[in-house]
């Protein structure tokens, strides 16, 4: 057993010594006792108090000392430890949009993760995977994430989880397994990294494309005068024989089971019904006029179309990829197997030149992008990685801030025991007074 705050033990010991001293030195009023032979006692002035250098109320004293020591031990934050390891690791695995099957990330994690370490998976947010089968759990996560990974979130979670290793490791090392694309680092990364005094081991995943893959869009259910079809026709065509080409199916009609099955294999299925009223989506309580729509996924940037729209339905719940100018969602995306389904609830009028505008073309290109958008994984610069890696030693677990960890179960039980003793103390005191 180790104590994270041993000063509390010394404080409790001092208080206990004071309690014992009070029991030795305390004066008290002697009891008035009937004695028929009182007249034979020499007549000296009555003493109000009796002092004696001997222990009084031993049971009460022991109870008080036990309560004080239990509180002291609880505040000293005891931790039951087994054999300590030299180095414990916090392994942070990037499960962002770059890698659909996580195989490479899981393999890399298995090289660094050992029993007792902390495994954290992260995309835009980070969460710890606990339990003995953490690696198995990591491999078993097949649901795709469409969010871009955040190294800042991973570092913050890793630093917080590092304190969990205080009990069984002398030092702690952060291991970051990620493609380490420039887009995964943000303005906060440097400041968060500076808060960790030790070095960070960087393990770079290979699944990084420096150039965005070409996109092949298959439009279905569209009439010849369909404005969306017209806008797509103006987009550059990709070579479908190219292995890097990402497939997108844009359906202007009703979806089928085959479409869903097709999407699960890694493609993007965009459902953009020409007739929104028959889409089956939630109908708006009141149709209102909206002056613009803003869309944007990945590195394509935002596309803003200023026109008069009358949205009548709301897209299905999911990650919002386009919004009306009043803030309500206009298009959403949700993961489906290794692919995704995107619902677009933007009415495009057949009349007029809306489909021919450059802004509309960009909006359609954005909404017909592959899952997660067209992300170009530009590697972070060497100087950035050097800064991220750091040069310091491993961090000693004793130096970690203990306040961030939650109290152990042992501490809770110690405090409960102390509380129980303190509840018994008045009863015992009352019993002693009555005796």
């Amino acid at each position, binding site marked *: 057993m180790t104590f994270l705050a041993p000063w509390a033990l010394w404080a409790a010991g001092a208080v206990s010594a004071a309690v014992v001293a009070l029991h030795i030195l305390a004066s008290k009023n*002697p*009891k*008035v*006792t*009937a*004695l*028929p*032979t*009182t*007249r*034979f*006692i*020499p*007549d*000296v*002035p*009555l*003493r109000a108090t*009796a002092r*004696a250098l001997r222990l009084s109320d031993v049971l009460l004293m022991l109870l008080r000392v036990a309560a004080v020591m239990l509180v002291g031990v609880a505040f000293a934050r005891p931790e039951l430890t087994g054999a300590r390891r030299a180095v414990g690791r916090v392994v942070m695995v990037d499960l962002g949009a770059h890698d659909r099957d996580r195989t490479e990330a899981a393999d890399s994690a298995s090289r660094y993760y050992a029993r007792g370490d902390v495994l954290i998976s992260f995309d835009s947010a980070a969460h710890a995977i606990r339990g003995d089968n953490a690696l198995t759990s990591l491999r078993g996560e097949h649901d795709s994430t469409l969010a871009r990974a955040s190294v800042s979130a991973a570092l913050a979670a890793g630093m917080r989880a590092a304190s969990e290793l205080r009990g069984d490791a002398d030092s702690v090392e952060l291991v970051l397994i990620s493609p380490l694309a420039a887009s995964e680092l943000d303005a906060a990364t440097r400041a968060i990294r500076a808060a960790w005094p030790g070095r960070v081991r960087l393990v770079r995943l290979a699944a990084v494309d420096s150039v965005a893959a070409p996109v092949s869009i298959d439009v279905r259910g569209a009439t010849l005068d369909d404005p969306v079809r017209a806008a797509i026709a103006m987009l550059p065509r990709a070579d479908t024989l190219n292995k890097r080409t990402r497939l997108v199916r844009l359906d202007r009609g009703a979806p089928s089971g085959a479409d869903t099955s097709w999407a699960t294999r890694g493609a993007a299925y965009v459902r953009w019904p020409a007739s929104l009223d028959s889409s089956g989506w939630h109908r708006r309580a009141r149709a209102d006029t909206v002056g613009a729509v803003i869309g944007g996924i990945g590195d394509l940037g935002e596309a803003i179309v200023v026109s008069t729209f009358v949205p009548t339905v709301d897209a299905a719940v999911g990650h919002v990829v386009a919004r009306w100018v009043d803030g309500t969602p206009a298009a959403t995306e949700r993961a489906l197997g290794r692919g995704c389904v995107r619902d677009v609830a933007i009415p495009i009028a057949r009349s007029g030149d809306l489909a021919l505008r450059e802004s509309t073309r960009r909006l359609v290109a954005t909404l017909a992008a592959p899952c997660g958008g067209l992300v170009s994984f530009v590697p972070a610069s060497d100087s950035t990685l050097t800064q991220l890696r750091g040069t310091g030693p491993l961090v000693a677990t004793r130096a970690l801030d203990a306040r961030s960890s939650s109290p152990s179960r042992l501490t809770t039980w110690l405090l409960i025991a102390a509380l129980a003793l303190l509840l018994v103390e008045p009863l015992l005191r009352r019993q002693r007074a009555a005796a």
Partner: protein
Amino acid sequence: MPAAGSFGSLLDALRGVTWPARRTIRGPAAGTHRSRQRGISPEFTEYRPYRQGDDPRRLDWKLLARTDRAFLRITNDRATLGTILMLDASASMAFPLATQGKWTQACRIAIGLAAVANSAGDPVGVIVAGERGVAQLPPRTRRSVIGEAARLFESIEPAGSASLEPVLSLVRPTQRIVLISDFLADDDTLLRAARERITAGADVLAIHIVAREELEPSRASIIAQDPERPELKRSMVDETRQGYLEAFGAFRAELARGWRAAGAAYFEVPADEATDHAVRRITSLALAVSTEMRGA
């Protein structure tokens, strides 16, 4: 207060114990105690020449026929001795409060002595002086007097202050008077009254009941309070304990000397002494005195 049914083992332990009078007595009824009178009992003692005025019925006619001399056949008479047990039921006898040890011991000794006296055919009476006055059982020879005494003791709770001195006047001077008390409430008045009864022929026994807590007070510091005089409080601490022991010892020694000088038998009985042992101690002393007198 002792339960009336709790004396069985004591009575069993005292079976066969005798309690002769310490002196010859003057009594009409036939009993077990040596009488001052010479009479017609079959227990022959001596011959005495006939003198004018003697009862001719006491002449030994056979001796007169053989020797032609008139002699009287002298025998020792035996008489009964009324025994009065007087108990002090003041508040000091209820000490210690938790056990009422002094009062319990007083009652058990009274029952024991009553049983011993009653087994010899002596009439036994009980007088209890307490806060509410005097409760008494007149002297009786019947066996039920033991149970009646036990029930009387059970009904009494020692309290207040009481004195045995006025009660002494209720007793005939020819009886055996047993005073059972802690003698803390009375001063010399009780001793003076007892001395008068002794002079008049009474056989007086003073049985002084003391509690172990009075003989050996606890080492703990306390403020002692007299139960009969609540305003009297003294500190029982290390500095006063020795003075207390000396003063109480002197009191007991003076008490014993005073009673014995008056002609009474004095016994100090701790409350924790086995009652049958105390009763045997009391009766055996009287037996020794009686034997000694007979030998003289």
